[in-house]
């Protein structure tokens, strides 16, 4: 383990300063805005869903914003990511427009998957995001396969797989880590350990304290970062990505994080304790990062409200776009399945 104590404040302070120095103030602010975009987008979705205005289901990313933003900020534009049934944070962080995202959630033909994906499958390969895979653990080998393509063609690109703690109990996780390790693939496995697989606590389904420790079974490099700390996530991801890009092999990077919302739909989190929720709320990634940026004079408190308002307007605009977009036609069902033939009827 690179950092033996992930909560060591001294180490973190060093990392924060180092990263800020490396990325510069503008990028630091962009990352802040992205986190707010994810938070407010998800909060709006919740309302739209509860009001019955949005079809489908929701799996929200509230509380985990530092993971997607920190990790995706460490990538090049032509690097690729693979996501899960909880994909909105990754989509926004990788640069899928809010308009196309909202339209997809509304099942419109202007959506990033033309309305064929929906809330659990958003993505756009042209922006480097595989349509999200909602089979737990299903994206892990695919991400490794994208990395294999880069390796075979000797392209300096990296692939990144996001998955949760639950997925680390799936066979695909173990099979893929083994193969990525023996073939030295340029892939980073990012386990967002939010401590619950739906309603089931990780304590109930695994004995290891750190999922990162599972890497040692495959002689793979591993690391743990504070998933509530965007700069810490950035730092660890950047390190892993650089190693992968320079033929140094894969990393299993565990991000310790928490869902400050339900698993899906109307889930009221009755399986979490009040103390636990309070503990993690105190580590709200947006508040932590905001305090840091203010302390470093990168951000002024007056600016925060302005950013939030701007983001609200962006969401309003996306919503308007989605609502005014055309519905797909029933006959569109038959489009987009095969490249070289019509669907037999």
């Amino acid at each position, binding site marked *: 383990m690179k950092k033996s104590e992930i909560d060591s404040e001294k180490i973190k302070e060093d990392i924060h300063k180092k990263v800020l120095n490396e990325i510069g103030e503008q990028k630091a602010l962009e990352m802040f805005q992205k986190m707010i975009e994810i938070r407010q987008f998800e909060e709006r979705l919740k309302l739209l869903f509860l009001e019955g205005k949005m079809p489908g289901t929701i799996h929200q990313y509230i509380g985990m914003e530092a993971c997607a933003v920190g990790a995706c900020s460490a990538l090049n534009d032509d690097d*690729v990511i*693979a996501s899960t049934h909880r994909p909105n944070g990754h989509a926004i962080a990788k640069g899928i427009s809010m308009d196309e995202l909202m339209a997809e959630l509304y099942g419109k033909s202007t*959506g*990033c*998957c*033309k*309305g*064929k*994906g929906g809330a659990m*499958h958003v*993505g*756009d*390969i*042209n922006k480097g995001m*595989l*349509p999200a*895979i909602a*089979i737990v653990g*299903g994206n*892990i*080998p*695919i*991400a*490794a*396969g*994208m*990395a*294999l*393509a*880069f390796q*075979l*063609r000797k392209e300096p690109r990296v*692939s990144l797989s996001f998955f949760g703690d639950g997925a680390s109990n799936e*066979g*695909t996780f173990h*099979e*893929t880590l*083994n*193969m990525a390790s*023996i*073939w030295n693939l340029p892939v980073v496995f990012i386990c967002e350990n939010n401590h619950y697989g739906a309603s089931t606590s990780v304590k109930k389904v695994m004995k290891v304290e750190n999922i990162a420790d599972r890497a040692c079974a495959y002689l793979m490099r591993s690391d743990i970062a504070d998933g509530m700390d965007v700069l810490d996530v950035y730092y660890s991801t950047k390190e892993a990505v650089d190693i992968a890009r320079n033929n140094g092999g894969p990393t299993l990077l565990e991000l310790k994080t928490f869902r400050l919302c339900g698993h899906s739909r109307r889930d009221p989190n009755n399986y979490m304790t009040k103390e636990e929720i309070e503990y993690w709320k105190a580590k709200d990634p947006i508040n932590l990062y905001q305090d840091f940026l203010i302390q470093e004079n990168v951000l002024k408190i007056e600016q925060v409200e302005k950013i939030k308002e701007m983001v609200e307007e962006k969401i309003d605009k996306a919503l308007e776009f989605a609502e005014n977009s055309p519905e797909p036609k029933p006959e569109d069902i038959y*489009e*987009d*399945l*095969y*490249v*070289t*033939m019509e*669907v*037999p009827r």
Partner: protein
Amino acid sequence: MKLSIAEALRKAIYDEMQRDSNVFCMGEDIGIPGGYGGAFTVTLGLEKDFRDRIIDTPISEEGFFGIACGAAIMGMRPIVDVQYGDFLMSAADQIVNEIAKLRYMSGGKLKVPIVMRAPVGVTGRGAQHAQSLEPFFLSCPGLKIVAPATAYDAYGLLKAAIRDDDPVLVFEHKLLYGSKGPRQESGVLDASNEIPDEDYIVPIGKGIIRRKGKDVTIIASLLMMHFSLMAADMLAKEGIDCEVIDPRTLWPLDIDLILESVKKTGRVVIVEESPKQGGIGAEIGMQINENILDYLISPIIRIAAPNTPVPFAPKMEKSYVPQPEKIYNSIKSLFQ
């Protein structure tokens, strides 16, 4: 030159790998020097010519099918295989939920040009190395499914599959490979052909009439196609003139070829090595019913394996697989 199916498949892979540097193979025991070239010798020796593109995997079917899927999305053309078709079930999530659906879920923004090869057929190995799982995958939109019964078709269909932009499952029969040396099977049939020394493909979605006839249409793939030809020879002596259709591609089915034949004969027999329940016969038979019921002189007959797993005991096994005699008897009864 005259090649067996195993040799024809090997040549197709070799030729395509020469032609396109994006083509690569992934599987278990496929390129180990001193090994077997996969369970049935198809990739034997290819590692000498393509060291980096013949990738031996751990025994992790779901994992490496997923890896192939990702590579395909990024522009490679992987050929993955399982040693026995039964193991497709270990990879089934990737095949059914990812490989078959990702293009659709993406709204047509990506493609998954992957070839998946699977040996099928009952060969004295009990229930788990014997199944013909074509019907399972026939019910999964997004896949194309081919089943070559001759070396000529094996070469042409595999090349077509490799060049195809959609995922293609290739079912091959263990008793038709013509594998040599220590990997030789007992009870094999000769499916070898003269392979022309030219760049040809057999188009996906095109069936072929293996034997022309006017009295009854027999539809069968792989080993059952060969058994049907044997039965047709026996029936010819009785004055019954069978037309034997080899669909070659199970999806998309060459339904026009089948319908034309049935319009002429008015009688249909569908033979398959998988259980009758939910089988290929059900699909093909209903398509005939839906389209040209009025042309049928007699009810459609399905000759299939029993609705049980494959038994081991040689006596039971022989009775499990539809034999030429069984096909002969069923068809003869149509004319009594």
